[in-house]
């Protein structure tokens, strides 16, 4: 989401916290319906994940995902949210695993795909202000506080994840030069994001929700396993498999490239959910 109020200084902040609390109280009293708190509607959807390069490492007991995400946005400040298991370890830490895998496979990573090359210049950025939300109330409060807002349908996705015992993690990011044009959003790439959690099976990520800019997501995903596997990606075609030697040992790999649609897509020129529509 685009954050329309990324930070506020001093006493003004105390007032906004109080008002945001009041907004959330009304929301809770109204079964989380937006009609009594129209200010919660995101004003203009302007941030999306355009592309993902991910290495999934599965050792039979746990999964670790290392990701390089390419986001586009219109505005100055954004946040990226996603559900993770509550016993996950989330890190923003330097790693060369994406480059190491691509080098070993004689690949240029995302640049192998013409759809990605068409995007143009991408600025390297870093995530900051990492947050965890344990309840829908906490999440909604944060979105109101930062005037990011939300869409009811998107919020329901998080409701489902929280009901299943997941938590929601959020990271902020900003471009050096902001865009004001939806046709030319600022493109930002952030590496170094890794999440690790216990599991005895390979678990893929959910599809991103449409944020108003990119209907599709460009993927390069590599599954590394310590034992040979025939696990496939739910939507992406297999483009290569075999053995790979990295700094920390040898793995079996399966690589999947391609395009997947976002969730929550709508027709061209149809507005996002908003406070003004009549039903």
């Amino acid at each position, binding site marked *: 989401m685009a954050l329309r109020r990324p930070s506020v200084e001093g006493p003004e902040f105390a007032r906004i916290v109080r008002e945001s609390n009041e907004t959330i109280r009304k929301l809770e*009293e*109204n*079964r*989380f*319906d*937006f*009609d009594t708190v*129209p200010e919660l509607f995101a004003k203009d959807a302007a941030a999306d994940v355009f592309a993902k390069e991910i290495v999934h490492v599965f050792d039979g007991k746990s999964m670790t995902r290392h990701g390089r995400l390419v986001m586009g946005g219109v505005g100055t400040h954004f946040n990226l949210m996603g559900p993770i*298991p509550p016993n996950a370890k989330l890190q923003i830490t330097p790693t060369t695993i994406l480059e190491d895998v691509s080098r070993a496979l004689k690949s240029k990573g995302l640049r192998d795909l013409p759809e990605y090359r068409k995007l143009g210049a991408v600025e390297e950025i870093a995530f900051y202000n990492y947050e965890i939300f344990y309840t829908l109330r906490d999440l909604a409060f944060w979105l109101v506080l930062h005037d990011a807002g939300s*869409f*009811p*349908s998107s919020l*329901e*996705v998080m*409701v*489902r994840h929280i*009901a*299943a*015992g997941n938590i929601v993690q959020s990271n902020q990011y900003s471009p050096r030069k902001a865009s004001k044009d939806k046709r030319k959003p600022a493109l930002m790439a952030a590496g170094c994001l890794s999440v690790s959690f216990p*599991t*005895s*099976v*390979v*678990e*893929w990520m959910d599809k991103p929700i*449409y944020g108003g800019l990119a*209907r*599709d997501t460009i993927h390069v995903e590599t599954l590394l396993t310590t034992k040979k596997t*025939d*696990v*496939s*990606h*739910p*939507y*992406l*075609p*297999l483009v290569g498999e075999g053995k790979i030697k990295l700094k920390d040992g040898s793995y079996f790999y399966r690589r999947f490239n391609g*395009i*997947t*649609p976002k*969730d*929550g*897509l*709508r*027709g*061209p020129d*149809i507005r*996002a*959910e908003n*406070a003004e*529509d009549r*039903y």
Partner: protein
Amino acid sequence: MNSETQVFDLYVRGTVPAAMSGSLIIAASRRHKDRQRFLRWHDSQADLIKLDVRPGKPGRIKATILSVDPWKFCNTQPRATPFYPSQPNHGVNIDGHTVWATNLLFGAPLEVDLPSWKPRRALRMVPVTRDAPQLSSTSHFAFDLDHRFAYFHESALRQGERTVHMQDLVIIRLDAKTGSERVWGLVPPVDDARSEVHNFHSAFYFEENGKRFLGLLRTGAVVESLAQHQIPSEHAVVPMQPSTIWIVELDDSQSTLTASLLPGIRELDGLALSHLDIDASSRNGFTLYANYKQADVGEETHGVNVYGEPPEHVAEHYAGMTVEALNYGIVLRYERINGVHSIRTFSRPYNPKRTSLGHSWLPINIELDSSKQWLFCSFAGFHPRLLPTHVAKVYTERVADLRHIRHVPPLLMRFRAVDLTPDYDDQRTYLSYTEPIAFAIAGTCPEDFLWTFSPENGLKLYRSHDFSQVVCHAVSPYLMNWRDSHFRPDPAHMVFVQS
């Protein structure tokens, strides 16, 4: 393609309650990852999934997937024709240790032995001929009140000039005790005689004044082409007509039974009456719960969408998928006591400002809990970019306002069975959005549970009175795919069998 079996464990988070010892049965289909291919959903390969559930913390859930050979029980038709004997990728009917799995429209039910998870036979009671080379049968069978007899219909399908016609209609009764069958000829009601609409998605059984009756939901899918298209382009669509319900008195002394129309149904003007649950325990009348999809279920996705976008520009488009609804659907409650009927309906558009109200876009599953006081419904929602323009344009009176409609998220909702009102509360325990559409009620009153399932989201268990907290969640990547070429789209149905 030969039948094959795959076995693996799911990763379970949470607790599997003791009452949940049993198996969940799901009929799944496959879709090729390559979006350039046209593959009609009726004809996509069937994978029958059995999830054996062992209680504990976290418990154990083992999957056994039987990939069905659609030609296994046929020596009379060449495999080269497109008209397979059985492609059971939709419905699940269970009695004791026997499962009958069915297609949405085409082919005969496949009988599967539950303990061994091996197919026994295809129930082909109507002969196919050169002129009528395919069968249709009821997807969801009726069962008598003692669960001894199962009832369904079959007919042959013949390609006509503009549409496919159904002929040689029969009703079949399977006797679970003896394994025998009884077949009756079926004569349509005089006021519902158009043979291109004589398909029946679900059946129900009831008794009245000491007589036995079968009800058939005449869905009315109109199929233009018996074989799938060679070129998936826009084509002329013959519009569906409002659904009806046929009532047939079961009379062992007759060889042919004549159907009549259940009053008040056609007048509701709904399309694609399809799924049902029923309380006929009084043995004198019934309360039927059913849903209208308001979708042209004889069509599938292909061609340019309603926004003029060609399929190659729509990444969520796979040619041949199940069709999107034209507008929000209807949930029906039909009560008949002593020959007198009363009707209630629930239908609601999606209002993003008031998500707590729910919606009725593309109703799929409908099931009563063990007390018959609560009704559970799943709704598939709406993906506007997947509605083909050649389908929508013949329903200008019915189709939603495409200038304003957006994606509508799927929904699972609990209703009060007595009046079809959503079971509102302040904590929103009665509804959950973005749930899979396949669910099954399990357990017994006062503690019923509800399982939901999709290959991508896995298996989740809720207490039926609280959708705000999952009891257990189980996943495996092997549920999602068949080899590297196909994924498994969300199946529509699931049935729980207590062990």
